[in-house]
Structure formats: structure tokens, C-alpha cells
């Protein structure tokens, strides 16, 4: 799409305090890359997410975590121990200047410090506080702990993935945490919209479990409407021509749904394969679901006679769905992503290197998205942010000596 020469940030007036751990770390990145001032509030010594690998050159170091790099682009960092009296005082002052606070502490933890929504919102009625927890702020499990795996288990997503008879298998990429963050950012921006049109701030209660449930796909209506429990199907093909198929040099994902069957069979027939599949009965998706092996007995040998590229380009040209099983390397080398200049180089002057990052999830004609700078060093913006609160350099140094900053 044509991008206009001048784009501008739409959130440059927004200040966000980011106290989120893994469950909410992506939420702040989305806002930061769109131009909001997102300030990571780290405990002195650095956030525990800095200990998550992998690391540059596999050298564990709080300033070399690729996990930290990936999810904290464009953010600033201050260090502050919010459990100390001085730390609380500074945090209250900072919260009075903020539009949004994102946090992932256990329910009630910030209230216990006198830093919950009720206390901070009283002094700053426009404040939006986004609280992301495993199971939400209410209910009998509100104090339960959860990792990513537990989140997708309880949200009903995990049961649908994996091989029948084997344990259900976790989706790669921490999808429970991602979903919690993604729904949190939508809620945050809806709350901001409310404020923009004259409303007050508010509290947003995000439960990872709730956020995962949409990924149950049709499992809920199948149970309610048909009393049928959807199960995991692994590598079983959903229908003839639907699933993971071996080819000469790897695998392709075929998805010959309603209209995609005829062009597949037409091509196979041209090459002398699958003449038995040309009958009328095979046009029914339900029939193909009931005759998987019979259909695949023709489709598999044909696939094995072709390369991945032949199948994908040939089938897509015939308006049939075939996709590669891409690795991260394939993505970085993808002709489509590179033609679109998807990847972005980010300078890491301390490491003397520039690294390629995934670019924007969306493209606008008028709004700017950019990675303003690499993830912050520990407390990199202490002088700037605390200075704005009226602290002198000496006071900041004294607070550092006291372990507050």
C-alpha cells in the first residue's frame, strides 16, 4: 500500500508505566512502538525478565537477553524499589504523571503497598490501570499461580493440540502470555478512547485464562449445541487433501476445503494421478472427511513427485490453499517479507552491532510505527525521569545508595 511521506505518532502524549512481567510484557511494546512513552519500572539490579534467554552469543547477561530485547523495544527504563517508603512516594508522584499503568502482580499486591488503582486513581482520575493476572482479580482461583502452559491448559486451548493418545502439546512461542498481552492492549486502548471522549480512567481486569478461551475455536459451541467434546487430532488429516503432506523435499500444509478441491484434482488428473477422485461424490467436504485414506492414497504419491515449491506455487496459482511449514530461517529469508521490507535493523551501540528485528504488525497511511531504539539498559532513564519529578542529581545518587533506585 502507498505510505504517505509523512506519518506521525498518535500516542506521543501518552505516558505508560510498565511493571509487567512475562504475561504483559508485549502489551507495553505495542504502545511503545506506536510512540507512547513507555517506562519500564525495574527493581534495583534489573527486571527478572532480563534473565530469560536466549542471550547474545549464548552469554547469560542482563544486558544481553534477546527476550528482553524483543519485547522492550522503544521503552525507557528506571529502577525503583516500590516496597520501600521512599520508593512508594516516588512511584505515587510518577503515577500522578501517567496515563496508563500495566502490571502483572498477584491480585491485591499493589493495594497492599498502597499503590493500587483505588489509591492512585483517587489522585489521578484519568489513570487507566491494566492488571494482567493468571485468573483475574475475582473468583475462587484469583490467587492461583500460572505459567504459560498452565494458562493455555485452563483456557481450553491446550487440550486441542497434539497427537491422540499422547499428552496434549504446548504451542510454541508462549501463546498464553501473548494472548493475555494482546487482549490487554485492546482493553487499554478502548479505555483510552473512553477517556478521549470525556470519560474518566478505569481499571482493566485481564485474566490470562479468559484471554485464551477464544482459542478453543468451536469446542464450546460443539459441547453446548451437540454435547460433543472436540479432541486433538495431531497429524490425522481432517479430510482427504487437508493436513500436512510429505513431498519430495519436505512437507506442505494443504487445506483443500470447499472450493479448493476441484482445482487440486484437475491438476492431479492432468498429470495422470487421482483419476478415481474425479467423481461427483468427492465434491462433498463431508464425503472427503469420511474417506481420508482412500483419497490420500492418490494425493500422497502425487505430492511425493513434486517439490514443496512446485506444490505451493502451482496450487496457489490455481486458487487452492497450500503453504510451507516455515522455520524462523525461512521467514527471515522469505521473498514476500523481504520484498515488503518487513525486518527492521536496530542499533545496539554498546554491543557494536545492528540486529534485525521483526517489523510492524500493521501498516498505516498516516500513523507512524517505528522501533525508536533498542530495549533500555537497567535504569538508563533514571536521571531523565526522576529529574522531571524535581529530584536533583545528588538526591538521585543518595537514593541509589539507599537501594531505592
Amino acid at each position, binding site marked *: 500500500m502507498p505510505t504517505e511521506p509523512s506519518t506521525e505518532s498518535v500516542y506521543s502524549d501518552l505516558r505508560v508505566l510498565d511493571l509487567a512481567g512475562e504475561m504483559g510484557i508485549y502489551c507495553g511494546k505495542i504502545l511503545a512502538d506506536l510512540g507512547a512513552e513507555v517506562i519500564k519500572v525495574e527493581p534495583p539490579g534489573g527486571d527478572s525478565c532480563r534473565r530469560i534467554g536466549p542471550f547474545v552469543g549464548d552469554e547469560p547477561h542482563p544486558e544481553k537477553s534477546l527476550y528482553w530485547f524483543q519485547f522492550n523495544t522503544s521503552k525507557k527504563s528506571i529502577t525503583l524499589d516500590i516496597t520501600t517508603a521512599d520508593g512508594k512516594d516516588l512511584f505515587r508522584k510518577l503515577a500522578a504523571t501517567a496515563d496508563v499503568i500495566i502490571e502483572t502482580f498477584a491480585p491485591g499486591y499493589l493495594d497492599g503497598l498502597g499503590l493500587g488503582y483505588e489509591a492512585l486513581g483517587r489522585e489521578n482520575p484519568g489513570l487507566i490501570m491494566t492488571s494482567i493476572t493468571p485468573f483475574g482479580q475475582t473468583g475462587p482461583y*484469583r490467587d492461583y499461580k500460572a505459567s504459560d502452559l498452565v494458562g493455555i491448559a485452563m483456557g481450553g486451548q491446550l487440550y486441542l493440540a497434539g497427537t491422540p493418545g499422547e499428552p496434549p502439546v504446548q504451542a510454541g512461542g508462549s501463546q498464553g502470555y501473548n494472548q493475555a498481552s494482546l487482549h490487554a492492549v485492546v*482493553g487499554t486502548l478502548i*479505555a483510552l478512547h473512553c477517556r478521549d471522549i470525556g470519560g474518566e480512567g478505569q481499571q482493566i481486569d485481564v485474566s490470562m485464562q479468559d484471554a485464551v478461551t477464544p482459542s478453543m475455536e*468451536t469446542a464450546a459451541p460443539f459441547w453446548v449445541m*451437540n454435547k460433543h467434546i472436540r*479432541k486433538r487430532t495431531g497429524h490425522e488429516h481432517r479430510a482427504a487433501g487437508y493436513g*500436512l503432506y510429505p513431498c519430495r523435499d519436505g512437507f506442505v500444509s494443504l487445506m483443500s476445503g470447499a472450493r479448493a478441491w476441484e482445482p487440486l484434482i484437475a491438476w492431479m488428473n492432468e498429470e495422470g494421478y487421482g483419476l478415481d477422485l474425479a467423481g461427483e461424490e468427492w465434491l462433498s467436504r463431508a464425503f472427503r472427511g469420511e474417506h481420508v485414506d482412500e483419497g490420500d492414497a492418490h494425493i500422497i504419491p502425487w505430492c511425493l513427485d513434486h517439490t514443496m515449491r512446485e506444490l505451493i506455487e502451482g496450487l496457489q496459482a490455481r486458487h487452492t490453499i497450500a503453504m510451507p511449514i516455515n522455520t524462523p530461517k525461512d521467514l*527471515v529469508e522469505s521473498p514476500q517479507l523481504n520484498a515488503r521490507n518487513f525486518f527492521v535493523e536496530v542499533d545496539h551501540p554498546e554491543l557494536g552491532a545492528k540486529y534485525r528485528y*521483526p517489523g510492524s504488525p500493521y501498516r498505516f497511511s498516516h500513523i507512524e510505527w517505528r522501533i525508536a531504539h533498542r530495549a533500555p539498559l537497567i535504569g538508563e532513564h533514571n536521571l531523565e525521569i526522576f529529574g522531571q519529578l524535581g529530584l536533583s542529581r545528588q538526591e538521585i545518587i543518595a537514593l541509589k545508595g539507599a537501594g531505592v533506585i
Partner: protein
Amino acid sequence: MIPGRPFAGIRIADFSWYAAGPIITRFFAQFGAEVIKLESHAKPDGLRQNGPFAGGTPGISLPASTTINSLDLSGYFANYNYNKLSLQVDLNLPRGREIAKRLVRISDIVIDNFTPRVMEKWKLTYEDLAQIKPDIIMADLPMLGLVGPQRDYMGFGYALSSLAGIDHLTGMPDDLPTSTGTNFPDYSCNPCHTTVALLAALRYRQRTGKGQHIEVSQLESTAQILGTAIIDYTVNGRVQGRRGNTHPSACPHGVYRCKGNDRWCAVTVFTDAEWVSLCRAMGRELLATDSDFGSFQSRRAREADVNRLVEEWTTSLSPEEVMETLQRVGVAAGVVQTAEDALDRDPQLAARKHWVYLDHPEAGRMVHDGDTFKLSRTPSQFHSPAPCLGQHTNWVCQELLGINADEVSALREEKVLY
């Protein structure tokens, strides 16, 4: 602001279909926007033809296109389209497209998730629509983008998981790539990213009066949620692979068989203190102090033994008993819930009134995903079930577009409104 309806006054001309698009407009419909779906008998929202269907046959385990006559019985469709209106108009006809344009002229947002050639063929691209409504906000969500050598590739979420690398990262290390079993990127990733973009564009319009064009390549959107897989390759040259249910810094970390048929509990131990708590909860006091298992490194070195010890214990208990026992001592554990668990047994989702049931005029009682975030001052609304195909054609044409009743009848007969 109308209480609870922050998007009151915002109208969306919704050309989108299947899941990723309609879930975007569902967010807006939940908070008071007027969302009008444009569908036709020739090209209804494809999910209307995907099960489960009211009165359907138990045991059909997967959505399958069927020859079912009614387009109003799908529970898959109902879930993503409550609070919306349906205008039945054939966009393959020039007069159908004229009606669509009249709707765009009084709308704030236009959205579609077709391959790029569809809106081009209909001359309903952003460039076309901005001529008739200069401050329109339009979001296109083609699978691979509007431009580029593979822009015309077709796909659904299931194939997109393969394309974007999620399948490669999912499964057992010694097995083939395994999918999530669903059209995974359709349900959170692509709808949430696009909704963020639309909310940004609304804010921009509020400030400048200008509309704009948004393009979401579903591949680029999904490539965001691979954790560190891309940057680990660009920085370290490492191609991350599948790791089953293991975790690089937690052990035990897995899914364990419990008492009952196909019942499982996820158990994840991140610290040595949690390991001690787990051992005591399992009644294995000696194991708690066994130095062979005292550190993460030592447990990782005998992960198979650790998993066997945990599973010896879990197989004698229900997954709920495992979860409750472990949560009481501060170990993160959770039932691998089936739909029956999540809908009928889970006291947490019940206490949060998560699932929403609405009565549909044709299909009866239907279930819908509840809130994925709860706003304290402006809660979401669930006021009407998904529309039947064309249910609001008369209302939209007469009340919004000013087409009189006779003309509407004529357009119906000519199969323009069909």
C-alpha cells in the same frame, strides 16, 4: 459518552468473513458501535456453512461444509457476530456495489479480509472509497499483504500457522511439526493487532479529521508472536526447534496423565523451593531433600525420572485434585480443560460469568466467548444474537440509506438484495 457504549455513533461497513475479521468488529460491537455485515446468498460469511449446527449430529468432530439448508444455524458463526446487523446485498452486481458505497458514505470504518483481488475486482479499494468518503478508515487484512510477489496467496488460520512458523515450533522434538489443532492466529493475534490499529486510526481522526488506510498482512502480524525465534536466528544464527512441553529453565514442566479417560494436568516448577513443595505435596519427603534432584540442573539432567515420579503421583488423582493440592502449596498447576470442564465444571469461569448465552430466533440457545478483558466503568454489552442472513436488509436500506419500501421490494426481486 453514553454509559457502556463508548463507540456509540461509530458505524462499520463490515465486508469481513470467517473468523479473523469478524472478531475485530465483535470488539467494536461489544462496546456500542453499529456493525453492518455485507453478505449475500452467493457469498455469505463462510462460517455460516461451518459447524457445529443447532440440531446437528453429535460426533461430527470437525467443522465441515455441509449441504445444510439454513445459513442461520451455525454456532461457529454465532460466536463472532452477536450485536451485529446483516445487510444482504450481492456485490457481484453493479447495483449491489452502489448500495455498498452508499453505506460506506455514512460509515466510519470499512474492513475486509479477502485476498487483495476481491476488493480490486469490485472497485471497493481504499482509493475508491476515499473518493466518496474522504475521512473513511479502512483496514484490509490479506493473508500476505496487498503487495509483494505472494500477495495473492490464499489461506486460513490453520495454514497461516504453518506459514508463520508456529507449527514448526509446536510439537515433540522427535516428531513432525504439529499444529495447534485450530486456526490459531485467527482468534487473538490478528484480531487484536488490527483492533489496535483501528483504535489508533480513530484517535488520529479525532485529532486531525483525517481518515486513513490500514494494511495488516496476517503473516506479518503472526510473525510477532514467535517469542524470540526470529531474533535468535538473526543474532545467533540458531534455528529454534520444537521442545514439546519442556521449558528451558523449569523442571518439571509438563502435562501429566491423571485418573480418568484422557485427563491431564499441567505442572510447572520454576524454583528449587517449588520443587520441595511439590515433593512434600506428593508425600515424597525424602525426595524433597535428595541432592540428586535439588537443583534445576540436576533435575534437567534426569528429566525423564522427574517426569515419571510426578506422573506416578498424578495418575492416582483427578486433575482437579492435582491442581488444588499443588496450588495450595504455591506450585503453578492447572487442569488441561476440555470444553465440558471449561463450560460446566470450572468454578472460576463460572464465578466470572465468562460464557455468554443468547437465544437465537432460529438456532435456540447459543454460547459465546465472554470478555477477554473487563473494564470497570464501561463494561461490554451482549444485547442481541448473531443476525440471520439479511435480517436487517429492510432496516438498513430504508432507515439508513433512504431507499423506499417499493424500491427495496424491486431490488429484492431483481436479486440485488439477495
